[in-house]
């Protein structure tokens, strides 16, 4: 098998890697905010439950969660296993990453000085307006580096989808490596991930710069 055939096959799988990546971000970024707000809820029961859920999601391997979401319903309830593996994979990723994002959001929101809320109150802002117009923009600016960290990790974590035989790039790379008894596919996979992350880095640096409006 020539190098180009290998790259071609793996590029095909890379589309599926991207599908996990973008869908996970699409769902987990907003879901994380909802979880963060529930986590900070004044109702003790709500914040307590959310706290336990976050603790479970952060305290168990993502690999295990992917297997649980894919095969759990079958073993526990006798439900059918999803034919389209992208669905359980994205559900598992989105829930897991939402837990991490939630804690990052919470860190950002709780780092805001209480004086800002007081000043907004004096100026007649409602609680909702204060959050949307004053707090949130500053929070986003402040948490950007941590978010980038998670996104870069997500790119690499997509390879865990192999566990449920979702044919993403790394799974295909492993198959080629096996059938050709060659190490080259792993190098190709490394290059794919690195280039993807270099692009993510570049985009996130631009976003951070754009948001640097007070400096």
């Amino acid at each position, binding site marked *: 098998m020539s190098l180009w055939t290998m790259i071609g096959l793996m590029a095909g799988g890379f589309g599926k890697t991207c599908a996990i990546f973008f869908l996970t971000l699409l769902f987990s970024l907003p879901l994380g905010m909802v979880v963060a707000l529930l986590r900070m809820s004044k109702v003790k029961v709500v914040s307590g439950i959310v706290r336990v859920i976050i603790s479970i999601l952060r305290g168990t391997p993502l690999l295990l969660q992917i297997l649980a979401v894919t*095969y759990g319903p*079958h*073993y526990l309830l006798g439900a059918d296993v999803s034919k389209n593996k992208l669905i359980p994979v994205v559900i598992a990723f989105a829930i897991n990453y939402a837990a991490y994002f939630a804690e990052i959001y919470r860190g950002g929101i709780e780092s805001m000085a209480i004086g800002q809320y007081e000043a907004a109150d004096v100026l007649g802002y409602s609680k909702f307006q204060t959050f949307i117009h004053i707090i949130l923009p500053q929070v986003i600016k402040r948490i950007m580096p941590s978010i980038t960290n998670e996104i870069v990790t997500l790119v690499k974590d997509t390879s865990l989808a192999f566990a449920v*035989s979702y044919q993403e790039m790394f799974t295909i790379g*492993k198959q080629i490596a096996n059938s050709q008894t060659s190490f080259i596919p792993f190098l190709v996979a490394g290059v794919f991930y690195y280039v993807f992350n270099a692009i993510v880095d570049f985009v996130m640096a631009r976003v951070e710069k754009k948001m640097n409006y007070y400096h």
Partner: protein
Amino acid sequence: MKKKIISIIISGLLAVTVVLSLAACGGNSGGGAAPAGSGADNAEKTTFIMGIDPEYPPFSYLGDDGKYTGFDVEICQAACDKLGIELEIFEVNWDNKLIQLDAKECDCIWSGMTILDSMKEAGYVLSDPYFDNTQVLLVKADSGIKSSADLAGKDVAVQLGTSGDQLLSSDLEELAATFNSVVRCDSFLKCFTELDGNAVEAVLVDEPVAKAYINEHEGFVILDEDLGGEQYGICFRSDDQALCDQIQGAVAELVADGTYKQIAESKEEYADLIPNLIFLQ
């Protein structure tokens, strides 16, 4: 005062961690170096590392006592006992098994492994075949599927890196083209779960594995169709001909003194294997 106590505790913990990790490193390099010897120093070999797929009953699997067992494991253990060497078991990742063998993580692959032409071409040393195998399709009994022709437009699962997987892209390519998709799982358990959960309609699998599964689970049948004959053997690194001969010699002795037959008849799970064991013909 409190701070001081805490800092003492922390530094104590750190010291313990460092010592433990150093010890672990030492242990690893010590253990790794001895069996890593290649063809040349086989004469002094004291440990033989057998590479198995731990999810491949009845050839190699985790027994009820938490130790690896299976037909291949028991034969290998008996052969090692004969040679007076210690057996160590290494769980390979089946789709990376040859890379792991080359990396000297194990000394052989011996786990219901099909002898493939590609292995011979790549220069691996292969033992004489010991088992006649066929590839079969396992389906749900109530699915109404009677032959491979009924699988047109359906999904079929296969274990990654197995001979069935290779067959679908070589001899069975035309059949595979009629399937809706081929789902490649990294273990047979997952293939069977996919079948049980209706995500696929059939699993292409080695006959003994299918039989072992049917014995434990109801509602499945094997299609009466032989999709490819093949033989199991043991795979060694290209420079390990001497080791291969040594192990093979020990197995031949086991066959001669009846131990081989005894092991084959010792467990219910092995009963289905006997008609296909080449050395017992």
